[in-house]
């Protein structure tokens, strides 16, 4: 036990790590207490215990995992399509002034159309199938990725580009060693924005029309007044959004270890 001795410093660290969870834990306890004491009707807001048992039930039947899987694939598929196109156009317009003067003003105009306002039109075009949801997510993700990639490439330090030219880098190496790493911090800001938009778009699209996924599960539960399943669906969306954000932060720390703003966390 000598190696695992509880030291004051260790306790302080554990305390510091627990501190951010204190308020959420207190809120859940308060929620449970209010439900148990009958202050909140369970049809309005079920208690944490009821939501927990709904989770166990749906996890046991496998319904929950199927719904999460379908929603996850929609989110990732749509984001991949929109992200790749946005990134490619951002690089193209950032590196070629001619392409930028041809395309950028058009894209900036389209950017002002709220993509969720297109839902009626998208349903007319694609029906309520998978392609409608993929399309909406892709459009939502496209713009933050495009704008930030374009901005990132445009603002790569001109002094570094000049230095690379003096040191004889060819176009390919100039792109991979100077332009792309220089644009990366901005691209990753775009990715974090895009992940947020990705979930919001998917939630709206699945709630409006779906025959599978988390949105379908919650809307179906609403018909039968299963408030606990509705709350569970909301929590699942929140959890998936948080996981996506964690993934983005992890990628940022991996890719931007050189950046002074990330240096402290990377050194640990």
């Amino acid at each position, binding site marked *: 036990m000598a190696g695992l001795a509880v030291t004051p410093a260790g306790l302080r660290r554990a305390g510091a790590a627990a501190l951010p969870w204190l308020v959420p834990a207190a809120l859940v306890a308060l929620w449970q207490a209010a439900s148990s004491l009958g202050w909140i009707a369970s049809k309005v807001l079920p208690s944490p215990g009821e939501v927990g048992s709904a989770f166990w039930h749906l996890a046991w039947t496998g319904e929950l995992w199927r719904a999460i899987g379908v929603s996850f694939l929609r989110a990732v598929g749509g984001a991949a399509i929109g992200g790749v196109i946005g990134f490619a156009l951002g690089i193209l317009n950032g590196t070629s002034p001619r392409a930028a003067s041809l395309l950028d003003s058009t894209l900036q105009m389209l950017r002002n159309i709220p993509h969720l306002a297109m839902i009626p039109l998208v349903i007319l075009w694609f029906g309520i199938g998978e392609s409608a949801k993929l399309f909406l997510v892709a459009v939502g993700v496209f713009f933050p990725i495009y704008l930030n990639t374009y901005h990132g490439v445009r603002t790569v*330090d001109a*002094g*570094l580009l*000049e*230095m*690379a*030219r*003096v*040191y*004889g*880098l060819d176009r390919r*190496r100039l792109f991979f*060693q*100077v332009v792309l*790493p*220089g644009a*990366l911090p901005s691209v990753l800001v775009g990715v974090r924005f895009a992940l947020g938009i990705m979930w919001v778009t998917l939630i709206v699209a699945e709630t409006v029309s779906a025959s599978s996924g988390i949105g379908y599960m919650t809307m179906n539960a609403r018909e039968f007044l299963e408030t606990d399943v509705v709350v569970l669906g909301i929590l699942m969306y929140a959890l998936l959004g948080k996981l996506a954000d964690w993934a983005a932060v992890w990628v940022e720390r991996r890719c*931007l*270890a*050189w*950046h*002074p703003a990330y*240096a402290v966390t990377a050194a640990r």
Partner: protein
Amino acid sequence: MSVAAELIRIAAVAPRVQPAADHASPVRLQGLGKSFGASTVLAGIDLDVAPGEFVAVIGRSGCGKTTLLRLLSGLETPTSGTVGFGPRPPVVRLMFQDARLLPWRRVIDNVTIGRTDPARRDEAMTALSRVGLAGRAGDWPATLSGGQRQRVALARALMSRPTLLLLDEPLGALDALTRLEMQELIERMHRSEGFTAILVTHDVAEAVRLADRVIVLEEGRIGGAWEIRLPRPRPRAAAELGEIEAAILARLLGENG
């Protein structure tokens, strides 16, 4: 007439012959001129630099000294006249006022930039230890001080064994003590490597301390040239250096009396 007048040599005078290092390019500028639109930045520059010579170019802001270096490095093309480097193609490297290290590559990977051969890492370590930074090879540039970054930039420039090293006010942003250390380092490298060096600076003391010849640029033309025939390494406060420095300053400030 003063001491200054005695020391003035017109630039057209042939350069002092040096023991020609085999690893140095001569530079010959003939009628070199550069205009941006209607404004003429450089006009009719004639200058011969011997292989291995150290020339300092000095002048007020906007006199065209940075443009001269950019023409020499090929970053700009001349409007008139020619830039020649002798029979063999030169290896030209340029040190900027800021170090211009790629922040996303570790120190050693900055030094090897542009090289793909297998010997590059060993050579980069040698170059880094010569500037006293071998221990920082694996660090990010953001963790270095300004002087250390310029030393990495110097290692990067020396890595490819340049025959012509162009220095564009590389010490301008450093504090006084670091600047003195860097001057000693550059002088030592010049002596051991033998490359031709052209230094643009606004620090007259620095120019006089480092250069074999100091050239004053005035409104895009060569206004005067001073040869400095003192042995190296030069002491920091030699009386002769002070005299030449005073003469050049008098010229720059327009006190021709």
